[in-house]
């Protein structure tokens, strides 16, 4: 199973070290609507879960994704 940051960096084509809790579509150029969709499907595949539409819409930055994944009881070590 891949880690969240690994997937995020891959989808957005950025370095893991450039990801912070505050990373958002506003300050991350590659975080466009298309990559949002890819990110959702990659996360769902990797962690074997399914987000609700509401959860997807509530994501404003990277930290929000961490919070949602916590709710699904994804192990802490995968959330780094």
């Amino acid at each position, binding site marked *: 199973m891949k880690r969240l940051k690994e997937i995020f960096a891959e989808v957005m084509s950025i370095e893991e070290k450039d990801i912070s809790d505050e990373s958002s579509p506003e300050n991350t150029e590659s975080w466009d609507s298309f990559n949002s*969709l890819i990110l959702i*499907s990659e996360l769902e595949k990797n962690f074997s879960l399914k987000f609700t539409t509401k959860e997807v819409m509530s994501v404003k930055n990277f930290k929000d994704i961490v919070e949602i994944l916590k709710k699904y009881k994804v192990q802490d070590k995968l959330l780094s």
Partner: protein
Amino acid sequence: MIEKIQKELNLEKRKQTKIAVLSSFTIQPISEILKETCYKNNIEAEIFVAPYGQYAQQILDSGSELYRFGPEIIFIAVDSEDIVITEKSLEDYASLIMKLKESTSSKIVVNSLLLPVYSSKGILENKDEHSNTEIIKKFNELLEKESRRSNQLFVFDFNKFCMRTGYSKLRDPRFVYLAHMNISLESLEKLSYEYLSYIIPLVSLTKKCIVVDLDNTLWGGIVGEAGISGIKLGPDKEGKPFVDFQKKLLELFNRGVILAVNSKNNLEDAMEVIKNHEYMVLREDNFACIMANWDDKVTNMKKIAERLNIGMDSFVFIDDSPSEREFVRKLVPEIKVLEMPEDPAYYSDTLDKVQDFNIFSITKEDLDRGKTYSLEKKREELRSSVGDIKEFIKQLNIKYKIDYNKKDEAPRIAQLTQKTNQFNLTTKRYTEEDILNFMSLKEYLVCSLKVEDRFGDYGLTGAAIIDKKEIGRWKIDSLLLSCRVLGKEVEFSFMKEIISMARKENVKEITASYIETKKNAPAKEYLKNAGFTLVEENSEKTDYMMKI
């Protein structure tokens, strides 16, 4: 020797094409997916996806990005969910497609409209003549009818696509609402793969020949060990998958795909089954070439390619053994090696999914191809019995016929320009529309050559396009012959006919060029041997002329 083959073939360049996608919903991700699918199949595609929801504007505005992009093929994915379904609105949509057809010469592939999966009318749905289902069905029928009359328009049966991939996987309702993405990412991948079946013939990557292994591929078990009565082939549980698989291969043979055998076996054991096994579907005449020996499979592939006079990139190879597949794939990457499932029950399914045999139109020559190769075997027998080549040609009793600007031959002539690599002076590729255009212009002359001999008909196997723009001088734009008729001096008779036609039109001089490619060495000496004089030679081309 194997290394040498590998070197020669790895030089092949990727085919280039331009693809446009128009849609009523968010389909942007297809751009990346389709590009990758193409790349894996040796195609470098440039892709234009029209901005969200702009399919109508792009078609109606003659200066739109779509037309400026200049695609070779346009896919239209409009979802019935995005249209208010009435007879009138679908009429409008149909005329939009017809408008596109008039505005471009690109191939057009339209997804048929998806039938409603559920209806509020419940069990009474199909009692209503004016239900949405009925209206959409009629529209799809109309579209298909139009496509039958056209070589430009194709209908992609979207409902069948859903049958294959599962409607439940078509949409992700969350993505539909979040992004108006009516096809899920997963299904877009499958759709891209199916669109590939139109792109392959577009860039002339259609495969010509399936080469099959025998033991555990055409039948179960090993004939060398189990004997003809011990192999699994027949109506029982274990034999039926192989019978069905052979039937699929026979269907492909009947539409023009060449079959050949490449098997590690004693030839006598193999022939015994092929000739005498009660449940064998494919017989000796279905195979253009049977290589059953103990040589390695690549050496045999090379021999088959020589015998059939086709390139390694025309082959699909089917073998149950992963190590044989790996061996062929590694040494000759041009050959498409099918990843066969371990379980024979899935063999037919695997073959069904291969997109590489698609062609835009089936010609008489395609349908007769199987016969052609078995006639070729008979000619080969005569050749070895006669020995002397001049005597062989004499005994063949070759007859030929040349026609000029014959419109109904345009599909075959276009196909020849697309497929002929060896005996081809300039290797210019033309579409059917191009050929029809040449035929209609006074400045051009399109000649076609039909050949037959005492064994049978070779069909339309040669063509030349002559540029007559200059008064008194003809320029040979293209001249090509299918390799089937080579070595019988037909190429010289063809030129003689062209010369005598030129005389009739008071032409004083014919010019022609040879443009070298990696494959057309067989045509290199042709102009010289046909009596032309060398005018100029440079790295790009060699120019010749002839006073008449």
